[in-house]
Every structure is written in C-alpha cells, then in structure tokens.
C-alpha cells in the first residue's frame, strides 16, 4: 500500500501542436489505505490522471511519488499497481485460475506460492467453482471480477486503480459488485482510486471524492461536503439529481436581489466584483402560496419518489423537489432555507464576512 503524491502534474497529449492541456497543474496527496473516487464528466481528464498514476502515461510536467519515492519514470509493472479497465480484460485462451496466476508467473513466483494465492483470491471472488473454465466464456461481471482478481493476487500491490469498471455491468449486478469492492477494501486496506462519471458510484464507493472539471480538481471532499457545500458551481450542478440551482443575483449585505425580489441571507458578504450567483439544492427549496419569491411553474416531473417542479424566477430556472402528492399552489412562491444558501463569485464559493 502506498500514499500517492502528485506534484504539479500537467499533461498535454500533443506537446508539439498547440493542443490544450488535458490536465492543469494538479497537486494532491492521497493517503495510504484510502478509497478515493475521481468524479467528472467525460473529457475532464480523470482517466488521463489515472493513467499517469498507474504509469501507463508519462505526464508532460510534474512528478508522481509513492511513499515519497519518485516513480514518475517507472513502468506500471515497476510501480506495482493493479488496474481494472472499463471493459473486462481477460486472457481468452486461459482458464480462470490461469488468468489469476498470470501476473504471478510473470514475476517468477514458485508454483506452490502461486497456487495458494490463486485459490485464496478465487475464494474471495466466489469464483472457485469456475476455476477451470475458459475465461472467455464467463459473463461480463465474472470477467470483470477476474480483471480485479489479477490485481489482488499480488500481495504487495501498492494501489488498485479502477477506470469506470462497472460500465458494461448490468444494473442489478452493479450494486453487488460495488458492495464486494467495498468489502475487499475494508478487508485488505488497499489504496483504491476509482474513476467514474456516475455520482452514485463515486459517492457510495469512496471516503473522499475528487471532482474534476476541465483538467483541474475543483473539489475534494466527503460525499456530504460535496452535497452541502460545493466549492464550485460545477460541483453543485454535477452532483445531485437534479443538480443544485444556480442563479444570478445582486448582493447587498444580508440580502440578495433577484430582479426586484429580495432573498434574505443569514450571513453578510462583502460587495465583490464579478458575477454573483446564489446556489441552493432543490431539496432545500419549498413551495408556498404567498410567502417568498414569486415564481412561474414551467413543468412538473414525477420521478417516482417525489416531484421535480421546474419554475422560473425572473427568467432564471429554479428546480424544487416536492413530496409526492403534495398540493402545488396556484400562484407559487419559493422559500429558500437560509442556512443552505451558498454564494458564488466567479463560480467559486464565497466566504461570508467575519464580523
């Protein structure tokens, strides 16, 4: 296991051409035994970052350190990491057991040791009864277990990296595999890094979620932190279904003005330059017949557990989550929980004035 440290990592896929940076200057320290998720939309650089950590890709700039040792120039094999890919990778002509033995044999371990380790991992993955089956004939989720197993057979593996490993797995098996991953993590305390664009996967798997956006890390936090206090409007919008409401306001002390309607804040903010936005989760907005900010209802979506009411306030969209079966007022007004309101300046969370 290892603590992973990134120092000023930047990457350009085509350094000769004037291509944009896939990653901009990322510096992070990820603790030993942690379960981290890299969350972000497609093309935000999360897979690039993962491949830089595993050594499949050499960063254009910066250093990667495992337990304070520079491994930037080492190959994946020398770094001793395991990686599970989006599509299950199995060696078709080998049996399940031979697949698991493959990395150990390549490292020249004695046969007795290989056999013992393979049977341990087979038991852990509940694949013992399929040990002598050809790997190519297994289902996608069993194949993905083998990909994972090839990483776990090595007792000295320093980190296990996952690149959207559940993409091709049937939804009902996703839960099962994710639970198993958590179990394996608790039991063996590997440092695990999990890349995904699925917030549910990230939030359920990880102790710490790293949200990436356009080649930069915009926030690192526990799932509740990301939900309650997104540090960037992108994080607010990306996490949650639907995402956080973000709308432009004029800020004056304890009050935010949307058009000529006032929203009371429980804290005061300095007058600041640049566009100011207010962010609030749809869960913390309530509909009222008279109180609050006047709004116009655009649509009501029934998502099963609750209703999502899409409203417009002065040409800006605000979503409200309402309990199933509750009445929707004729002339609706929106009530915002003051302690749940976040203020953003230039898309970044603004701190209230200390008095």
């Amino acid at each position, binding site marked *: 296991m290892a603590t992973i440290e990134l120092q000023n990592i930047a990457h350009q896929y085509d350094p000769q051409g004037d291509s944009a940076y896939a990653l901009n200057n990322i510096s992070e320290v990820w603790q030993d035994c942690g379960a981290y998720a890299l969350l972000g939309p497609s093309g935000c650089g999360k897979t690039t970052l993962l491949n830089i950590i595993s050594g499949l890709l050499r960063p254009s700039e910066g250093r990667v350190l495992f337990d304070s040792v520079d491994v930037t120039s080492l190959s994946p094999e020398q770094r001793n990491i395991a990686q599970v890919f989006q599509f299950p990778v199995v060696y078709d002509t080998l049996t399940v057991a031979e697949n698991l033995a493959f990395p150990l044999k390549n490292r020249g371990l004695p046969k007795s040791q290989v056999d013992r380790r393979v049977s341990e991992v087979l038991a852990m993955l509940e694949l013992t009864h*399929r040990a002598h089956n050809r790997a190519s004939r297994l289902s996608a989720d069993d194949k993905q277990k083998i990909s994972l197993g090839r990483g776990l057979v090595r007792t000295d593996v320093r980190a296990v990296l996952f690149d959207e490993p559940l993409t091709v797995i049937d939804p009902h098996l996703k839960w099962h595999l994710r639970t198993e991953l958590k179990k394996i993590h608790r039991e063996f305390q590997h440092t695990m890094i999990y890349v995904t664009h699925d917030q549910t996967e990230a939030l359920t798997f990880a102790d710490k979620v790293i949200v990436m956006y356009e080649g930069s890390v915009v926030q690192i936090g526990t799932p509740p932190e990301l939900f309650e206090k997104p540090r960037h409007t992108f994080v607010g919008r990306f996490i949650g279904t639907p995402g956080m409401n973000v709308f432009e306001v004029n800020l004056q002390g304890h009050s935010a003005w949307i058009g000529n309607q006032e929203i009371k804040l429980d804290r005061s903010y300095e007058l600041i330059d640049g566009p100011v936005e207010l962010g609030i989760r749809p869960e913390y907005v309530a509909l009222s017949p008279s109180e609050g900010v006047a709004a116009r209802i655009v649509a009501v979506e029934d998502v099963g557990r609750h209703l999502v009411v899409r409203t417009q306030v002065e040409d800006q969209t605000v979503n409200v989550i309402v309990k199933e079966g509750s009445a929707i007022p004729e002339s609706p007004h929106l009530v915002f929980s003051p302690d749940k309101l976040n203020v953003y300046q230039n898309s970044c969370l603004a701190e209230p004035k200390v008095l």
Partner: protein
Amino acid sequence: MKTKNNKAWFLILPVLALVAISAVIPLITVVNYSFQDSFGNNEFFWVGTEWFQELTQSERFHNALQRTLLFSALVLLIEIPLGIAIALAMPRKGFGVTVCLVLMALPLLVPWNVVGTIWQVFSRVDIGLLGYGLASAGIDYNYTQDVADAWITLVVMDVWHWTSLVVLLCYSGLVAIPEAYYQAARIDGASRWSVFRYIQLPKMKRVLLIAVLLRFMDSFMIYTEPFVVTGGGPGNATTFLSIDLVQMAVGQFDLGPAAAMSLVYFLIILLVCWVFYTVMINYDQAGQESTGGRGHG
C-alpha cells in the same frame, strides 16, 4: 407479432437462377461426363465408375496430387508465419500506416498471368535480374532445368504475391484489439512473447482461419502462374493438379477422366477446408462445452 410474408421467397429467385446457371448446371454436366467415355462426334458411352477406379490407381494423378499438396503446405508454412510477423511489425498509427498498406496491397492488384510473366522474365538466367544476378554471383541457378530451382522460384513467387493478403487480414485483427489489453498486460508484467501468445494470437484466430482457408484453396488450385513460369516443367516436376487437368481435358480431350478428376479435385478441396475449419473452430467450442458442463455441476 411479426408478419410473415412467404412471397419474400420470390426475391431470391434471381440469385437461384444465377447460381444454377453459373454453378449447379455446369457441375451436373461434369458429373455426367465423369461416368461416360467419348470418341468425338458428340458420341458418349456409359462406363460407370471406371474413370474413378482408374484415377485411384493412376500414378500420374497421385504424383500431381502430392506435388500440389506439397506446394500448398510450403506456401502455408511460409506465408502464415511471415504474414503474422509483418503485420506485427507494421506501424499502428501515423503516416507509415498508409504507406505500408498501399505497399502491401500492390502485389494483390497484379493479374495472375502478369505475375507469372514478371517472374518468368525476372528469373531468366540470360536477361532476368534475379536469374542473371544469381548466375553472376556464381550460384548455379536455372529454373528451366533444375527441379529444386523451379520449385523455389514458384514458392518465392507465391510468397511475394500472396503474403500481403495474410498481412492485411492479420493487421485488421491486430488493430481491432482494444488498447486496454496491452495496458493490462503491461501491468501484469507480461513479456513480449506472452502478449503475442495470450492476447494477439487468440484475437487474430478468426482472421487467421480465413487466411488459412483462402491461402489453401488458392494455392491448391494454382494454375496460371506455374503455367506461365515453368509450364509444369522441368519434366513434370511442377505439374500440379490444375495443370494436369487442363492438359487432360483440353490437350488430350479426355473428357471422361478429366471430369472424374475434377470431381475428386473438388472433393479434396472441400474436405481439407472442412478439416481446417473444424479443427480451428473446435478449439473454441471445447472451451464452451467445458464451461457449460462444469458450470452447472
């Protein structure tokens, strides 16, 4: 519910008619000839299976068959490994890909008789670049007189002409392998050989099957090139089944024996292809059955 309209069968009528005219009717004519003898004047006599019995004892047929089998074996043994090796060495991206693909495709675009003519001239000791070069270097080479030289010339010519096909097929198999396989192999610490043995070769199996079948059929039926280069000589040293057949049917006008020979020739090709196919596909199914069997156990 899917609506079924049996009138759709009429849509395949043109194909049936075409296949009947191009394949079935000529084949039946050949079957008909193979049981009869003719003395010109369009007179035919029923001889039963006499031509087939004669064929099984014919030394001429056995020799031609052995030569053809040997030629196919040599061609497969050289072209398949060589084709795989070249495909592995070809670049995967960049400008080089187009250059390599065009170079590879060139020999395939040359008509058979032109290939024969090229090599016939190329190998001539008096004016050919290869033949004259070898002779000047002091190597005793003459494909019109020496059996080994004639064989080497024909095999090299076929390798030059057709290895590209194997290369292109293998290359298409190789580029279809997702990058993740190579990345996983690096992480698993696999050697270059292991990558070939456990990733590239299994993934190329399907295209290799096609390559083996095509190369077997083509080489087993080869006619034009050896006819142009050696004319079946020296002596009968390069008289393959196809050349022998044409001599018999067109040269000697022995329609009956030639028809019997064509049928046997056709059946041999069918049989060998079936064997190749079964062996290579069975490998796959063995895995499937063992999974099914033990999976339920």
